[in-house]
């Protein structure tokens, strides 16, 4: 059987010529054959996009969102049908993530994303900053997106539209379909619209040197937004130079800290186990925001460890009780992790393994206050519960690779938020809500959307008010700025 062909979407056109088979099992057009129209070589062509009012963009995205319901959208239905062959998520989970897509394009949310991540006054023309103006211009941007969650494709398209970027999305091999289906929906909703003409979705094998050398040049691409950290960034870094900026969204791991209050009584233990189960199990622990190592302040003496073991069992039960549209046993359970669990199960001195015999997920309770050696590879709904005496022990385990920290109770979160960031933590969130993604907030301790735009400045001076050399005189700066600002008003 020939490999299914996944077309490229280049500026509103579907391209299928010269298919090349990928290791993942689908065929996609040879990217070299797309180079004629894929990069935007003439920067003047950005003008048509910059002149589209933000309201029009938001309305258009709203229209697109309304069409992103699987039953009514053949592009999306086809993508969902085929995606199961490449994704690590089960069909049930893919269906439920696809159901989230329309809400990401909802006008109220999009406006709030534009407001909070960039500022609409900078996006809709020149914003007065006193004796001058600032405007956020779209840039020519390549997005190397991750495929562990289909909503990453949608978020990327929304961010690109509100910033008026010329956008090339490099599809990942584990989701070559979602961005494509959304792009086709945009083209159908607004054929020939500048947003359509400045959007491309292409699959190529990351690191394809012939193609990447031809694409990544400051005359064609100004920014590369790369999800997926070292592996995807490694071969991009060689093209980075003045004029071509890298915005890395590294894969991080998350931690969970649960204070002593959670273990005060049976009801609190059960409630916190249910909350933690959501952080562990939603999206099958495929996300960087999912909980893996969970520090519990139970104490490390025999009584504390016994408490941690009991809570571990509650957590295991709660993960297993998650509904199918939210969490399922892994599609492909990591065989190394399976072997690791077997070993730990055989050696009960240091670890207690709850479940995991049928690849359904497991909870490993450390009997000493240390995570398992392989904690970075926890997946398929396997969590490691680590008893500690003090919250400070958990904070010390955080580093630059700590993305989300799920915390219970709120009082502990308020205490941690001033110290955990010093160690590297980037996001603190109430226990149970780690897997929510808010597109209107900073991400990975920075603001990727803000970095997608080019901040252009227009400064205004008048020789009759400000001598060209005035600023060189001591103490002159304040007075001259005041005068010019007065005139500007």
């Amino acid at each position, binding site marked *: 059987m020939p490999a299914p062909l996944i077309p490229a979407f280049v500026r509103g056109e579907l391209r299928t010529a010269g298919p090349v088979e990928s290791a993942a099992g689908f065929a996609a057009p040879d990217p070299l054959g797309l180079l004629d129209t894929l990069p935007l070589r003439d920067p003047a062509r950005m003008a048509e996009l910059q002149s589209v009012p933000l309201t029009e963009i938001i309305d258009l995205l709203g229209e697109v969102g309304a069409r992103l319901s699987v039953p009514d959208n053949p592009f999306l239905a086809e993508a969902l049908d085929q995606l199961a062959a490449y994704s690590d998520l089960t069909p049930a989970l893919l269906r439920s993530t696809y159901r989230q897509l329309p809400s990401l394009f909802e006008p109220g949310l999009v406006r709030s994303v534009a407001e909070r991540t960039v500022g609409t006054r900078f996006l809709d023309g020149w914003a007065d900053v006193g004796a001058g103006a600032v405007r956020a211009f779209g840039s020519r941007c390549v997005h190397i997106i991750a495929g562990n969650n289909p909503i990453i494709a949608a978020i990327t398209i929304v961010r690109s539209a509100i910033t008026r970027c010329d956008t090339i999305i490099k599809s990942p091999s584990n989701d070559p379909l979602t961005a494509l289906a959304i792009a086709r929906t945009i083209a159908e909703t607004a054929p020939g619209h500048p947003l359509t003409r400045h959007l491309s979705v292409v699959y190529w094998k990351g690191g394809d040197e012939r193609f990447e050398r031809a694409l990544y040049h400051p005359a064609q691409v100004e920014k590369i937004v790369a999800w997926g950290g070292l592996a995807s960034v490694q071969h991009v870094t060689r093209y980075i130079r003045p004029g071509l900026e890298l915005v890395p969204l590294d894969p991080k791991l998350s931690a969970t800290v649960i204070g002593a209050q959670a273990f005060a009584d049976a009801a609190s233990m059960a409630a916190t186990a249910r909350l933690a189960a959501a952080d562990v199990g939603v999206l099958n622990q495929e996300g960087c925001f999912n909980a893996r190592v969970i520090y519990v302040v139970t104490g490390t003496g025999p009584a504390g460890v016994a408490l941690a073991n009991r809570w571990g069992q509650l957590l295991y039960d709660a993960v297993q009780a998650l509904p199918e549209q939210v969490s399922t046993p892994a599609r492909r359970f990591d065989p190394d992790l399976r072997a690791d669990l077997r070993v730990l*199960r055989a050696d009960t001195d240091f670890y207690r393994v709850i479940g995991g015999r049928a690849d359904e997920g497991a909870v490993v309770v450390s009997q000493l206050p240390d995570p398992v050696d392989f904690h*970075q590879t926890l997946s398929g709904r396997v969590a490691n519960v680590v008893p500690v005496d003090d919250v400070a022990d958990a904070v010390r385990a955080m580093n630059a690779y700590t993305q989300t920290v799920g915390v219970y109770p709120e009082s502990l979160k308020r205490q941690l938020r001033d110290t955990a960031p010093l160690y590297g933590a980037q996001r603190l969130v109430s226990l149970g809500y780690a897997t929510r993604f808010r597109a209107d907030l900073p991400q990975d301790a920075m603001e990727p959307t803000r970095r997608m735009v080019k901040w252009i400045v227009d400064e205004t001076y008048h020789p009759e008010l400000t001598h060209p050399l005035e600023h060189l005189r001591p103490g002159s700066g304040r007075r001259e700025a005041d005068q010019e600002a007065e005139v500007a008003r």
Partner: protein
Amino acid sequence: MTSDEDLLTFAGNPIEYFGHSRLAMHTLAPRRLAELQLAALKLRFAALRDRIPILRTLAEEQGIDEIRSLDDAAPLLFPHTVYKSYPARLLVDNRFDRLTTWLSRLVTVDLSGLDTTGCASIDGWLDLIDASTELRLAHSSGTTGTMSFIPHSAVEYDRLYEIVRLDVIPDRDPEGVDVVWPSFRSGRSGIARHATAMAEQIAGHPDRFHTLHPGLLSADVMFLAGRLRAAAARGELDRVEISPAMRQRRAEFEDALHATGRGMGEFVERLADTLRGRRVASLSTWDVFHGMAGAGAARGLRELFAPDSVVFPGGGSKAGVLPDDWARGVAGFFGVPQLQLVYAMVEVISLNLLCENAGYHLEPWLIFYLLDPGTGLPLPRTGTRTGRAAFLDLTAEIHWGGFVSGDEVTVTWDPCPCGRTTPRLGTRIGRFGGTRGDDKITCAATTEALGEALEFLNGALV
């Protein structure tokens, strides 16, 4: 039928079983070899199942009571993490009592009487075990901040070198040959363990064992090196504490740093002065030999030894680190027409030799499993296939010899044009598990890691 006694000889003392013949070891009919291996496997499993707690639990978990085919043992092959399935904290806190209990689950040796009260370092603990038991633990390079301890016995190393003698001293000359050992004289890392056996069995006399450094390759330094490297990668270097015991060993570290740095030049000069033109045997990793040849070239030293010298490079190399023609440079330095490449790993006591058809032939006492990397299940034992290498070492008597490596290999089961009938691995050997933190248990990166740790230590101790 083969008697149990014969099978035990095959599994435990293959050199005797095959009548001291390397040819005989590798020319059994494949079907006959499989029969022998299965029979020996059944014996080993029956003997070890209830004496090695981890094996017993694994077998119970999998519901395996008896072995009827070679593949029946596939679920019992240990992952590499079994040898480091203790919290690293035990080493930092000198909890060698608990570490001993952990170790006792992996071996048949009774360790209940081992008094670790006085142990204040890994070296001290390993000393104690060497001195009071038949165990010879081999430790990993510790590059990820944890350290594996792989249980072997003194007898296993002795037997290995009896076999190596067949390759190096075919006429069984009791005199032995000069051994060039471009490393520390002693130690307990995977490769350092070979030093003792090589000195005794190949060199025959301490004076004929020529080493880069006369001292010990310290497990404590390597563990600290790994921790420092892991901490540096996480941006946590300031959080690593160096114990007073380590601080007191500063002079030793400076000396060792010198040896790993400029020492190689002095070593090759010493070899040129004392051994030029003599027949030697040498074993090390590709990168060390490459460095040695480089130090020789810088001093105009070439074709230093007799052409019938035996040079065993093993351990592979990190991609791109060595030039493609490294082997020619090493052969030119030693003055041998070609090197005797070996495929070896710390977990499995054997040196599998490369044949003239570029195949690493696996010793007959190793049951080879090729596993599907996605499922971990064994692939059929036919034709030529690529997958994950796993082994069951039938010579293992005090521990379980089943082990899943991280190596991606291509195996050919059909007999080789070279005449050998044992399965062979192609020379393209990759690594699985880029995301898992590569703690490859060879010493390929050891020199560098050691140098880094020593520099840091010496800096911190000023």
